[in-house]
């Protein structure tokens, strides 16, 4: 079992990331609390979301210290989700337009 030495990082790294996640969560909550609206709201939400997700994956889940082959296996396939996202957004747009033109009239 000598290969399973695991990863050694100082505890401070986790405390720092924990603190950062707290701050980022507080900031995203503030977006709602102060009723920031429109594109600024969506941009801020997305930025804070990806920052938090990035810290969790890279530091807490140790992906930052894994080999490149592992990173590729885990980060490449989700690109397909983005494709589905784009397709479904186009489709939803179309459905909404059909609903407005066929059902909202009467």
């Amino acid at each position, binding site marked *: 079992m000598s290969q399973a030495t695991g990863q050694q990082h100082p505890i401070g790294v*986790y405390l720092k*990331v924990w603190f950062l996640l707290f701050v980022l*969560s507080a900031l995203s909550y503030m977006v709602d609390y102060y009723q920031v609206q429109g594109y600024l709201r*969506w941009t801020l939400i997305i930025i804070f979301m990806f920052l938090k997700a990035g810290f969790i994956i890279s530091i807490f889940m140790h992906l930052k210290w894994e080999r*490149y*082959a*592992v990173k*590729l296996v885990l980060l490449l396939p989700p690109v397909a989700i983005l494709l589905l996202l784009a397709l479904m957004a186009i489709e939803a*747009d179309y459905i909404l337009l059909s609903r407005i033109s066929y059902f*909202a009239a009467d």
Partner: protein
Amino acid sequence: MTTQSSPDAPLNQTQWQMVVADWSADKQAFDMPWGKIMMWIFLLSDTFIFGVFLIGYMNVRMSTADSWPIPSEVFALSLGGDPIPLILIAIMTFILISSSGTMAMAVNYAYRGNRKMTFYLMLVTAIFGASFVGMQVFEWTKLIVDQGVRPWGNPMGAAQFGACFFMITGFHGVHVSAGVILLLIYANKVRRGDYEGKNYDAVEIVGLYWHFVDLVWVFIFALFYLW
């Protein structure tokens, strides 16, 4: 262990050369315990499940001609005075992040061979997780009993709201509950000393699952509650 290349590999390999070496070296491609890579693959498949749920939610929210209920108001809660928007959800978010923090430290102490600290930190993580589920039960009860939200309709607006909410948060809640059970089982194994003198990979693997649960919540919080 992580960033070094195998002994027979040339020095100064590029990242891509390392990938090629890993895949073509006539040995296991991923230099990690099998349980860990299996957990990663499971989490990747789970990513697709939650991804599809959230995309389904986006699709119905974009395509409905009715107005979407405003989450900020639907999930407001009065703590004595005026209702505070999303306060319970914010508290749940902080609790789940804290549980992720304690879990990360549990993994760290496990690799240092500190059995006692590992056990206690895993226990704290499980307690945080259980309290998260408890708050979710409270939130669901309030929504169903007081606000009349059903999977097929609600008094506030678009009928699809309930279906998305119960489906997404319900599935996430099941993940958290399963995680709490998993944590308690493995915390007990650590306490008993099952891994003493062997390795603590199991703690890291449970940790990966737990962080993923936290990760999914980040997306649900942003895309469902804040959007």
